[in-house]
């Protein structure tokens, strides 16, 4: 058994190093948000003054509000579009143009953002010249750009969820005479609901975070939160950004943990139901 133990020591060390690497920077960011000193990394005692400063900063508050509005609309539309694409790719068999749809839903995931951003901006400019829409650039163009980027993430999540559950449930409902729309709302939707929730959350966080694509398609007066953060961070570290980071990371962690617990519970109920059916 000695070799087994040695290997388990290796595994524990690898995990410890891996997770330390992932989490120490985030934790240091959060700890130093409570630092009294203006020099972010020199400890000058505990203080929450940067949080107060943050809420007096009109520019950051406005940007945060704009980002939140864009992110919510984006997440909702992206979830609808991404779910449609996911269902089409997994459930509709072979149809004309399926390959192109498959490529178009995976390409935005790995495409360097400078390319996506530039190409969308050029589209908006060309559209404005041709049909007069969208008028200038701002919230609308940013939202469209974000939807294009994030719907791919939703598609991938919905696809994997759809692929992992049994088609026979849907087929049984169809055999019993349920219409496709009814099957979708009564059978498919409840089963893929956790995937929709995680897709929605992921679309929300990506939208709240995107800098590069947003910078291309944003207009004057439509600075989102990442754009304001980036312009501040370029000049060096500043304690109020640490405070902002702590709030944002805390909120995201809370959302993800709550969603995770909810999904685990749903999974357990689902499994219990399956067991009941089987016995």
């Amino acid at each position, binding site marked *: 058994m000695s070799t087994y133990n040695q290997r388990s020591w290796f595994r524990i060390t690898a995990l410890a190093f891996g997770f330390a690497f992932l989490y120490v920077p985030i934790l240091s960011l959060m700890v130093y948000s409570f630092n009294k000193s203006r020099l972010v990394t020199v400890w000058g005692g505990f203080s929450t003054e940067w949080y107060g400063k943050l809420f007096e900063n009109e520019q950051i508050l406005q940007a945060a509000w704009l980002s939140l509005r864009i992110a919510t609309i984006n997440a909702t539309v992206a979830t609808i579009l991404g779910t449609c694409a996911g269902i089409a790719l997994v459930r509709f068999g072979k149809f004309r143009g399926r390959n192109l749809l498959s490529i*178009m839903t995976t390409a935005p995931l790995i495409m360097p953002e400078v390319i996506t951003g530039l190409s969308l901006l050029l589209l908006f400019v060309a559209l404005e010249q041709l049909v007069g829409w969208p008028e200038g650039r701002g919230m609308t163009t940013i939202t469209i750009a974000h939807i294009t980027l994030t719907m791919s993430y939703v598609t991938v999540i919905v696809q994997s969820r759809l692929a992992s559950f049994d088609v026979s449930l849907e087929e049984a409902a169809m055999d019993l005479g349920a219409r496709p729309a009814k099957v979708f709302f009564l059978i498919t939707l409840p089963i893929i609901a956790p995937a929709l929730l995680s897709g929605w959350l992921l679309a929300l966080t990506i939208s709240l975070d995107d800098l590069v694509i947003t910078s291309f398609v944003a207009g004057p007066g439509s600075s989102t939160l990442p754009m304001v953060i980036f312009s501040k961070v370029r000049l060096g570290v500043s304690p109020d950004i640490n405070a902002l980071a702590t709030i944002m990371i805390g909120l995201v962690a809370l959302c993800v943990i709550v969603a995770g617990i909810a999904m685990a519970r749903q999974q357990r109920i689902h499994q219990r139901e399956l067991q009941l059916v089987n016995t």
Partner: protein
Amino acid sequence: MPSKLSMVNLLRAGLTYMGLRGRTAVIAIPYIWLLLFFLIPFVIVLKISFSESQISMPPYQPLVQWVGNQWSDIRLHLNVGNFLYLGEDSLYLRAVINSIKVAAISTLLTLLIGYPVAYSIARAKVTIRPVLLMLVILPFWTSFLLRVYAWIGILKNNGLINNFLMWSGIIHQPIVMLQTDSAIYLGIVYSYLPFMIMPLYANLEKMDLTLLEAAADLGCKPFKAFTSITLPLSMPGIRAGCMLVFIPAVGEYVIPSLLGPPESLMIGKVLWTEFFNNRAWPVASAVAIALLLLLVLPIVYLQRTQDRQVDSA
């Protein structure tokens, strides 16, 4: 007055029609969206990369112009000057080579760090695997920009590492770590680590462990078993993970501009500068097309790897 039966039939026919229409709509809505906002924009980038710069808004000349009223009066201004310009100025070539170098080194480092982690998760108890996976994905949910920003505080001259080393008396002068190429590697490894771990984990978790038992029974040492069984079998995961890190890393903008030296040449940064600082939209478009051509091969390779995995599953 139609009979009851024919009413039912009519209704059914109508609903089938609706069902079919519903199906078409489910395909058509995302399809049209992606065609309009993802595919067509690339065609426009291609078009503008061939047009000439001019000082106006938008800052490029139209490719097709009607100089008169007749069809024969169409003038096509196809300008390959932007691409020739990219070839002439060695800045662009150096940027391309440097981007590939930075992305390749970072991908290799990500693999070296990600593999042991993915392996350890895949071999952990089934009950704690979801928790460990959650811990890998969680940072991915928090702001990318802020995670890169966190490294500025750690690496800078009066940052965490230097402060600690000076306080403990190991060094007396701060080591310059921020604004170096190594800081870019670190930033990329840190930001893209989950992209490497996830496909590796998916692959390692599916592996047939009886193969390793058989090897052990035949007297094979664990390390030898790893190099001759586990490693070759995990190649699809390694390929997918490496491509998922390499492709976005080549065009990375935020990490080199926050952590790298100001003069660092990355193609994403060059595109950004051409577009925002020089307002040279056609040149920026040409850079985008060049970058896209550069990435076509790895993207096709990734798609193939994934198709093969789907086929074998």
